[in-house]
């Protein structure tokens, strides 16, 4: 790791992680190969290095990056994607994808608002509805056999549309936030503090969810079967893994995390915005965070912690570029490049890790 960090940071930070890979292959010495193997044994290895380099680069090149204030503005850039990506990772490891998380992100807070006006315990009910949507996703994919991209794209449109219908395209004030509680303007109640309103609320949720889901993925049968299905669906079924059940379960998990993030963000900002474009951007950033973090879209391999770091990388990239005074028009451009580079590195890492080509 030290050797990589020593490399001079280039203007675009991400490419710096690439050099070590081809070089060691050229040397091909058994010793070097073994050392590299060990370094890359961590799925998150490459993205940790890339993220560190990015952070160091911005710390050196901007005055205000490494400050508490900057950290606080960074939080909402990455905590939401990290949570959504954590759920998405469970679907991606299966070799599927869930695009409907964008719709859950948009739909859940409106549902929360509507239920709350009706006087129903609303967060829980909204999340239960998300679970139902997740179940439907899993059902269409695992039982009916629709390709997950198509099935969840349809669900994305359906539920974003439904969010627009029930909101009449009008923003509303999030229940429980200062704007909604008369006489408490400027003061957050406990509910809002916990569900996204507090400065560190989303960060704490993100860390807690990621720890729990990583443990589930690595140390439980559920996680083992998830990897098994993504790696060899037929084989897993032949061994007796209940493929449909696990698939449906993972889609439910994915929908719930997205709905939860939708509510957090609504509480944090104080309003529920009927903005499908924003929701779609969050959806793709969440998928990107998972992929950058080392989870394969082709399935069979993935990490929740990697998704957190992937989200952190995207957050740092955005925050750093903004602080550096980069024209906002360039942000998407750099994000796109960063994802391409991260994927190239990941595919190489995978080859080394599973011993592609024998040896």
């Amino acid at each position: 790791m030290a050797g990589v960090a020593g490399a001079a940071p280039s203007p675009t930070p991400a490419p710096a992680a690439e050099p070590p890979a081809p070089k060691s292959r050229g040397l091909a010495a058994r010793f070097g190969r073994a050392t590299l193997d060990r370094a890359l044994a961590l799925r998150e290895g490459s993205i940790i290095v890339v993220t560190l380099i990015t952070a160091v680069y911005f710390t050196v090149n901007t005055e205000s990056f490494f400050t508490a204030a900057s950290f606080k503005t960074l939080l909402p850039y990455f905590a939401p994607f990290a949570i959504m990506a954590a759920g998405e990772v469970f679907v991606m490891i299966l070799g599927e994808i869930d695009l409907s998380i964008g719709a859950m992100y948009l739909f859940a807070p409106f549902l929360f608002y509507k239920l709350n006006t009706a006087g129903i315990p609303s967060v829980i009910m909204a999340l239960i509805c998300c679970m139902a949507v997740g179940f439907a996703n899993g059902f269409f994919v695992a039982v009916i056999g629709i390709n997950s991209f198509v099935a969840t794209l349809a669900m994305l449109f359906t539920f974003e549309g439904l969010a627009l219908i029930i909101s009449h395209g009008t923003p509303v004030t999030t229940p429980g936030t200062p704007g909604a509680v008369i006489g408490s303007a400027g003061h957050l109640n406990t509910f809002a503090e916990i569900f996204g309103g507090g400065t560190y609320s989303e960060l704490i949720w993100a860390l807690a969810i990621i720890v729990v889901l990583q443990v589930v993925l690595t140390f439980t049968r559920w996680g083992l079967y998830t990897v098994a299905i993504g790696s060899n669906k037929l084989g897993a079924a032949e061994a007796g893994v209940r493929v449909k059940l696990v698939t449906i379960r993972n889609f439910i998990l994915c929908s719930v995390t997205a709905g939860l993030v939708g509510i957090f963000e609504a509480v944090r900002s104080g309003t529920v915005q009927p903005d499908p474009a924003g929701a779609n951007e969050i959806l793709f950033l969440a998928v990107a965070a998972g992929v950058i973090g080392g989870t394969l879209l082709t399935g069979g391999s993935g990490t929740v912690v990697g998704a957190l770091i992937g989200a952190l990388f995207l957050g740092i990239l955005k925050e750093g570029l903004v602080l550096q005074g980069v024209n906002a028009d360039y942000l998407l451009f750099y994000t796109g490049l960063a994802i391409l580079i991260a994927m190239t590195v990941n595919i190489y890492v995978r080859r080394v890790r599973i011993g592609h080509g024998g040896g």
Partner: protein
Amino acid sequence: MADRPPALPVEPVVAPVSAPDDVLRVEHIAKRFGPVTALRDVNLHLRKGEVLGLLGDNGAGKSTLIKIICGFQKQDSGQMFLRGESYEPKSVDDARAHGIETVYQDLALIDELSVYHNLFLRRERVHRPLPLLANRQMKREARVALNEIGINIPRIDVAVARLSGGQRQAIAVARTVNSDADILLLDEPLAAMGAKEGGMILDLIQRLKEEAKVSIVMVLHNYVHVLATCDRVAMIQDGVIALDKPTAETSVEELTEIVVNEYRRAREAAHAEEALRAGTRSP
């Protein structure tokens, strides 16, 4: 396939056969996949402690039969009996609960998982009360089991994708042996194996046979292997059992003869079908 050209000169074993010490009996099993008839009327029995070799051409229905017995697929008609009782497996897990373990032709190994996770897939050891995987225990037990079986896998915590074809096959076989099952179904356990590794598996089966605790159905291609390892041989042709004999009463020559005849008949059948097609009906 009722309108197949008739008069195939096979004498299929259509009547169910049995022995007093049968652990498994399969009667009148039929299975179609759309227009394809995989099994027409299969009758088979397996005695306690017996090693039954299952032969047959590619596509004869051997794997289908195995998958029906192990609960992965369901037959269209026919019955199965396990230790004298009616046996209708609902799933692979259900069959496993009845003591039936399977090595599939495609091995059903999970490339991304370690050797020991593959060995214990669906039979994982977990801690209580939190259901976390007891990885250390599984590693230890996997090591012991592989040593007992006599399969040499240098590292059991690497992904099985890193193993050679023969080693993978060995893991798949070890998975069934390292269980409480008393009936093993092995679908081509020697495919993809070198002579040395194949010998290892045959030795293992020989040892299991001597212990007489398990009964084995084994799909094989090599007649020499069948005659050397199995107690009895059954051959599937055209979805029925065309031959069912103790290996002591048959020979490589007889088995070859049957297959040569099958090829001849297949050619004749093809001609007949062509003639039919030239007529009014299409098959």
